[in-house]
């Protein structure tokens, strides 16, 4: 019970690492910095493993396991504690965060080795781990918000890590600002929870929300309002429509950061938050619909943009947006454990994809444009094979982790709405296409770079080892839910079922132990087969276009030039926001509020008065350059006038 009893140790380990490196790191040798950063995350990961072991031994009545440390805010009748809690959902998140985080820390020691900001990088990365752990361990919404904002801060700092580059710091600012728009919803949602339930503790809010009657569909009561406000926050953090715009730009950060923060962990915080609040969402059907539709549309929308991007990291970024859409689709149709399952498998394969992309970029000496790659398969075989595994996983090849998690989501979506399912299947096809396109452009075909200038080399072992470990999970990580297809037990869902026991839709209507008998086996095969077939189709198309007949893509782009430009220009959403929101706001602030109102109207009036009293102003100037005695006289005069006025009126 060591870790459970001392829960604080988990977040404190990376915080200590961040503080030590942040304060002393600049004077330390690089090996010591590495040692501090790695040991703190290694210890955190093993503590999380130990916690998992201890947690399994807990009796069910002691779950959620809660530890309260001290009262944070108490004002009037409101209080919020620094309290941590562990339940099944937390355990999953902890293992994903510390596990993937640990691997990425190892990888970074290689990737960032020659960067002058090495120490700064690791203290930010450790700080991120701290806030992420606070986020998943928090026992109330306010502490969750601390982690939420903290990871946002680290994301900002790490996106702008190369602060000499304007584009990097711009991207950092954009990320922070867009997330703040999301926070608008989160804060108001939290306040409304507080007003409705009088507390922010999960352990108190969630049962009370469950006890409230479900709000009629299509009607927005208080629970629906709370749910929608929270979802605005989630859409910001997890890059959903219409707030996804920051994530592609976030690729300005170093690649390990993209892997850890902008693929595996932080961006999934929104999904985690919705899953954590699932009780509220379940009693707000309208909000559920919104979540499902937004998730589904985001999945499709981002996937279409991913089809034509040429920057290897941008393709992966849009892919992340798209996959996060799947997770929200799962939540929206009530399949929360499926959403969390996909969150986990996605952490494996997308983390891997980014790290492998980093290895490619490393090999190419910093080149990210896939048009200048090609034929790398033989030169960097480890990178190729691990990335190939990850591609199969995300494309949903049968037996790979993404297959199980995606199919579980689509199956659940199909029960709610066939259109949602159909869009999901279509997106699965697109996913397969853009991922294989990436793979083929990078590793196959002719070498489109100058071999004399680019010395392609395989990455060092400390970068390859995390790739291999993640590849193993990307391939096999789905099997914990696999037996279900064979009529067995979905261990993952069963493990999470105590958390999601309030779920009334897919989670419980589907008997946890075996498949719903109402679905005929034949129909099930079609349902499961459809995404696989779509994926296969995507693969074949990519193969045809980028391996077999590599001149065709250009022709297609020419004959559908309007569509191509629209996709290539990312639907011009950034431009739209600039034209509709940013520029008018700037214009109003500058021309109307500042120059017209402030300087024109208000100051105009004031200066008018001032002109009248210019004479006294001149006198004041004289005094100002003069001595203090005359100013003392002024006080005296004032006091005399005041007193005599009083006496006169009193008399």
């Amino acid at each position, binding site marked *: 019970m060591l870790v459970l009893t001392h829960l604080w140790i988990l977040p404190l380990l990376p915080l200590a690492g961040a503080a030590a490196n942040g304060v002393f790191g600049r004077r330390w040798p690089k090996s010591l910095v590495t040692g501090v950063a790695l040991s703190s995350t290694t210890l955190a990961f093993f503590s999380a493993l130990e916690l998992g072991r201890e947690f399994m031994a807990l009796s069910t009545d002691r779950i959620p396991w809660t530890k*309260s440390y001290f009262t944070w*805010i108490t004002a009037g*009748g409101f209080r919020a504690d620094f309290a941590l809690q562990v339940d099944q959902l937390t355990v999953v998140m902890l293992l994903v965060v510390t596990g993937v985080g640990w691997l990425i820390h190892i990888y970074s020691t290689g990737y960032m080795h020659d960067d002058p900001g090495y120490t700064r990088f690791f203290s930010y990365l450790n700080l991120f781990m701290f806030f992420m752990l606070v986020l998943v361990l928090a026992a109330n919404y*306010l502490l969750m918000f601390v982690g939420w904002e903290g990871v946002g801060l680290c994301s900002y700092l790490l996106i702008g890590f190369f602060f000499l580059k304007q584009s990097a710091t711009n991207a950092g600012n954009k990320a922070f600002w867009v997330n*703040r728009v999301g926070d608008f919803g989160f804060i108001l949602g939290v306040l409304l929870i507080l007003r409705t339930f009088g507390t922010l503790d999960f352990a108190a809010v969630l049962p009370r929300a469950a006890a409230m009657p479900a709000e009629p569909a299509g009607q927005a009561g208080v629970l629906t309002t709370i749910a929608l406000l929270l979802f605005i926050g989630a859409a910001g953090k997890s890059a959903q429509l219409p707030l996804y715009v920051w994530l592609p730009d976030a690729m300005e950060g170093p690649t390990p950061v993209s892997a850890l923060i902008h693929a595996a962990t932080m961006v999934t915080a929104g999904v985690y938050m919705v899953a954590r609040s699932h009780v509220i969402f379940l009693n707000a059907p309208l909000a559920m619909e919104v979540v499902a539709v937004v998730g589904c549309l985001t999945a499709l929308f981002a996937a279409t943009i991913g089809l034509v991007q040429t920057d290897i990291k941008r393709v992966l970024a849009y892919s992340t947006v798209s996959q996060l859409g799947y997770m929200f689709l799962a939540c929206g149709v009530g399949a929360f454990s499926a959403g969390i399952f996909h969150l986990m498998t996605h952490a494996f394969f997308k983390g891997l994809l980014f790290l492998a992309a980093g290895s490619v970029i490393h090999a190419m000496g910093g080149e990210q444009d896939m048009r200048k790659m090609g034929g790398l398969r033989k030169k960097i075989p480890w990178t190729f094979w691990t990335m190939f595994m990850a591609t199969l996983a995300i494309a949903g090849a049968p037996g790979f982790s993404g297959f199980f998690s995606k199919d579980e989501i689509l199956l659940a979506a199909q029960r709610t709405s066939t259109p949602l399912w159909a869009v999901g299947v279509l997106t699965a096809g697109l996913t397969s296409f853009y991922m294989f396109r990436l793979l083929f452009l990078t590793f196959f075909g002719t070498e489109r770079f100058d071999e004399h200038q680019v010395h392609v080399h395989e990455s060092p072992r400390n970068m390859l080892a995390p790739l291999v470990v993640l590849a193993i999970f990307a391939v096999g990580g789905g099997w914990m839910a696999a037996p279900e297809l064979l009529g067995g037990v979905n261990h993952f869902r069963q493990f999470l079922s105590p958390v999601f026991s309030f779920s009334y839709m897919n989670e419980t209507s589907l008997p946890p132990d075996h498949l719903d008998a109402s679905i005929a086996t034949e129909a099930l095969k079609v349902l499961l087969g459809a995404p696989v077939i779509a994926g296969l189709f995507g693969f074949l198309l990519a193969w045809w276009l980028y391996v077999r007949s590599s001149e065709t893509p250009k022709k297609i782009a020419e004959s559908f030039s309007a569509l191509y430009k629209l996709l290539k220009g990312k639907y011009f959403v950034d431009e739209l926001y600039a034209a509709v929101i940013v520029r008018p706001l700037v214009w109003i602030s500058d021309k109307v509020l500042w120059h017209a109102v402030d300087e024109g109207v*208000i100051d105009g009036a004031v200066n008018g008065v001032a002109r009248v009293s210019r004479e006294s102003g001149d006198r004041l100037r004289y005094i100002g350059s003069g001595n203090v005695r005359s100013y003392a006289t002024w006080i005296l005069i*004032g*006091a005399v006038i005041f007193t005599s006025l009083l006496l006169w009126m009193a008399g």
Partner: protein
Amino acid sequence: MEFYNTHILTVVLFTPLVGALLLLFVPRDSENAHRVIGNLFAFLGLIVSLPLIWRYSLSPTADRFQFKENYNWIPSIGAHYTLGIDGISLLLVILTTLLGAISILSSWSAIKMRRKEYYILFLLLQTGMLGVFMALDFFLFYLFWEVMLVPMYFLIGVWGSDRRLYAAIKFFLYTLVGSVLMLLGILALYFKAGAMTFDVPTLLASASKFDTSTQVILFWLFFFAFAIKVPMFPFHTWLPDAHTEAPTAGSVILAGVLLKMGTYGFIRFSLPLLPQDPAARHKIVTIMLVVSVIGILYGALVCMMQKDMKKLIAYSSVSHLGFCTLGIFALTPHGLSGSVLQQINHGISTGALFLIVGVLYERRHTRLISEFGGLSTPMPNFAAIYMIVSLSSLGLPLLNGFIGEFTILRGVYEISIKYAAWAVIGIVLGAAYLLWLYQRVMFGPVTNPANEHLPDLNAREYATLIPLVILAFWIGIYPKPFFRVLDRPVQLIVEQVNPGYYGAEHAASPAVNAAPAPSAAPDTMMNMPGMDMSPAPAPSTEKK
């Protein structure tokens, strides 16, 4: 010592003045002596004020105003020398002595001319501000209110930068208009009550028996003085000029303390002066809330467009102080204690921001954003501290600003979701202007050769900034001691100005609260009757 024990407020109040008087006798040419004595007395002022913290009694039976001193002063008109502080003024007094010491320290090398006069005026200003927060007699209050105006005028007008005279006169005129109206208000109150006393509680109590139209007039007479000081939109245009032109220490004090005299005035005088008639009162409160929200948004938007660092921070003050007035006029305990805490927070964060601009100004003699860029490279430690201060100002959790803003929003939410939602937009914009400023000043390559070899912070600059950073973390992580001091005075005020609040909450709580709340944990400061509206943590949180 005996005198100190019985007259602690007087000692705190006049320590700076003693320093100022002493400086009068120091010859003009011994310039080092001036700054040594100035710093000594400012620091001494901080030291003698600290015992207030632990001597202040939190007991519910303690007097509302503590450390009271009362002497007959001008018997013919009934003016008394009455001092006393409650939790609200306690925090503001400590903020004043702390920021006073810090900003005088920050002037060490920044002020090169007329040092003698500078330190005399600064110490005099300290006494004036402290007096405003301590006086419990209207006559005395008004005296200090005016006393503080004059040194500030000269600090801007003599030691300011290029357009200092315009700024100083504008500041003077604005404030004078407010003061005159307030004087009329005080006189009206005095004669209408007809009790031949300036005692604040007595006069305010008698004001509650006036007819509605008199109450409304009284409210507005006081309103202008405070609204200009805060400043509330549209009375704010003196602030950007005054801030921009004032020397660093002047800006720190102006933002950190002077503006709080307006919010303090609202809390101490305007709230009790709110008309008793519900309709009239509702009208006034609505106006105040709307104007506060306009100030939050307007300040933030105009702020984004500024090209001068100090002006930018000045407009951000308009936005932040909008939160404070919003909290005050929500008339709820959370709104009010959040507001007072946010006033302290603003003093810390914005004070630190002005010190940061001062650091740059002393090195480059410009405040134009476009003159800077890429300073992270030559000044890494400065970059770290500036980042923390920015984050504290934009309300990042675990730093002070968040606590204040959240508590205010909590209080405002109780009366209207609408206002809270608008106010949150101000928070969103806060991140925009502060981080954009940071980016333009600190990030990127060093483009201006003048910035290439700027020295990082020196020991004295650390000494001015580190205490504020520590306080920012303290309030962000463990704000309980601050709220504890505020709970009782805030409750007394809300009981008085919003009598329905506690009753209504009490009646409403069972509906919210399914589980009976077991005894409030002893460490919560909820020992107020009928305040037990937060359900106790669910049993599971007690598991060990």
